[in-house]
């Protein structure tokens, strides 16, 4: 092989990986990076999108949203909605996974429960919103059941009352999201060697001690990974809240996603909406970095 041929071959080998990657890089660039960069640019412009030659606005739009009490209420609602959802997704997912993994439950019943428990996962956000709007209507099933057993005295307007609306949408989201934890934790439980529990039995461990000292530490990598992912996803939930309450009443269920949407498509203040979107992006980015660092540390 001549020297020229050899160097040509070398170049081909060096370029080949980038050629293989180029289609996916092009798609990511066009569909993800370009919109992201554009939104960041909009957040520093006056009358972005609406004018052909928007002027530079500096941090004006950021200042505006930070001065808006609705933004801070949305941020608080987002945190409440997200934290409660993640905590209850994890707790309910863990309890159901432990039940499904237990050999004390009849295998037939276990199969039935497995199907029942995973049902919420089969519905789209729109269907979940419609189901819970019907169930939590003032004349719905939930009110009549709670009144019958005497927990409430009169009909509660779950989605229409500022006192209950945020709890109601959070509840609907918890119901919709726990199966992810349940399935992941069940897979984790089935991977814990039986020997660990037998050794603990011989050492005299009680059921709760086995849970604390063996099960939870063994599941910890799954718990942390899924919790972080759930946190990132739940922070961005839009359709469920939009269809059930639309962010109301009186901003009581306004979260960052609905707040941003309204700025963009109700007030047509696309610059301020972009600034709000950048704030959401930064929070998500922070969590994602935390997740990536955790994954690397493992």
């Amino acid at each position, binding site marked *: 092989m001549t020297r020229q041929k050899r160097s040509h071959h070398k170049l081909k080998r060096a370029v080949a990986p980038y050629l293989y990657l180029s289609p996916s890089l092009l798609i990511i660039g066009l569909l993800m990076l370009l919109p992201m960069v554009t939104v960041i640019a909009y957040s520093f412009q006056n009358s972005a999108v609406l004018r052909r030659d928007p002027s530079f606005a500096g941090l004006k739009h950021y200042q505006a949203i930070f001065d808006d009490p609705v933004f801070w209420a949305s941020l608080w609602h987002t945190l409440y909605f997200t934290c409660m959802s993640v905590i209850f997704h994890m707790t309910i997912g863990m309890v159901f996974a432990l039940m499904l993994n237990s050999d004390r439950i009849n295998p037939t019943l276990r199969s039935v429960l497995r199907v029942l428990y995973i049902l919420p996962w089969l519905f789209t956000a729109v269907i979940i919103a419609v189901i819970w709007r019907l169930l939590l209507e003032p004349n719905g099933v939930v009110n009549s059941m709670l009144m019958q057993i005497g927990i409430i005295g009169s009909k509660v307007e779950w989605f229409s009352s500022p006192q209950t609306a945020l709890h109601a949408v959070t509840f609907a989201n918890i119901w919709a999201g726990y199966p992810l934890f349940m399935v992941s934790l069940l897979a984790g439980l089935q991977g814990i*060697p039986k*020997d*660990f529990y*037998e*050794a*603990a*039995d*011989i*050492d*005299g*461990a009680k059921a709760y*001690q086995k849970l604390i*000292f*063996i099960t939870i*530490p*063994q599941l*910890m990598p799954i718990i942390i990974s899924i919790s972080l992912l759930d946190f990132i996803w739940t922070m961005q939930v839009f359709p469920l809240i939009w269809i059930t309450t639309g962010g109301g009443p009186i901003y009581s269920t306004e979260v960052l996603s609905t707040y941003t949407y309204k700025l963009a498509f109700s007030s047509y203040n696309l610059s301020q909406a972009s600034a709000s979107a950048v704030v959401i992006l930064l929070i998500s980015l922070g969590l994602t970095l935390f997740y990536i660092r955790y994954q690397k540390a493992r």
Partner: protein
Amino acid sequence: MAEVVLENICKTYGNNFHAIDQLNLSVEDGEFLILVGPSGCGKSTALRMIAGLEDITSGSLRIGGVDVVDMPPKDRDIAMVFQSYALYPHMTVSENIAFSMRLAGKPKAERKKRVDEIAKTLQLTSLLDSKPANLSGGQRQRVAMGRAMVREPAAFLMDEPLSNLDAKLRVQMRAEITSLQKQLGVTTIYVTHDQIEAMTMGDRVAVLKGGVLQQVDTPKRLYESPVNAFVAGFIGSPSMNLFEATMTGAELMSGAFAIRLQDAAFVRRPGLKSYAGRKVVFGIRPEDLYDSSLESGRKYQTIPAKVTSIEELGSEHIVHLNIDAVRVDSGDPDAVQDFGLTSNAVARFEPDSAVRSGSAIRLALDDTKLHFFDPETHLAI
């Protein structure tokens, strides 16, 4: 410390499968008993029943004179070393060893003192803060031992604790466990499928097959006087050669050769005379077969054989042979590994033997070392 007594222990599963059938075994205080047998013989099930990890279908089990059949594992005063070691990966060596004390609510200072003592005995002091993932196989094995020792139990139960180690380390750990057991003097029941472990470690060895106890004896007696063809074939490596032959007067006739038996053979086994004119199973260990061209083999009678292959181990040659006789299956599923598919006998020759693969030789045999079994029942004659 305590004696462990099993009386008529049975284990039957839902599909009427008898995993253990009428097991009677008495392990004396401080004794090291080995439960050995091929895969699926019920040895691990028996051990797990003693530990309380499997229910006992019927029979009685006493540890230190106390009937423990209905007791949960924690109240049986036993400690177990698992095949996988069952070390908790999220705990350090120290936490693993002290786990049972922590569960029992023992103060931290007491836990530390005890862990330090055990770590010193097992040479684990420098590893106390390490996690099991950072330990070698042998170190993990020692941590598992430490976790068992910390409880100061009446009996140790060990379920194939060396099977995950490589061959060299296994030899070292065999010696370590044996000397530790002698030092502690704790009654120990040790399950293995490896008959070398069985022969080298235990005070006595119990051989199981199909859930039925075949023989309990010292390793030496088990080797010299097996009660049936299965024990004869299972104990010893390579396995004993077992063949079918016909007793004709004082000779064993098989195919093209005959082996003369001395009077002493009939004196030692009076029952052998009744097999005159009938078929009998005879067995001879590989080390009782000699290369007739060497000094060691010249004093014995010879039979014709063809060498099929030779394994030169340095200190000896394992020679695979074909002789004109029908090999008898001892019932040991591992025996095929010793004999292979093309030979029916195996011999241990001295390293200066010059036999070649494919050559026809005269095989010398020490007829005083022959074993005899009934062809129907496979019981020793």
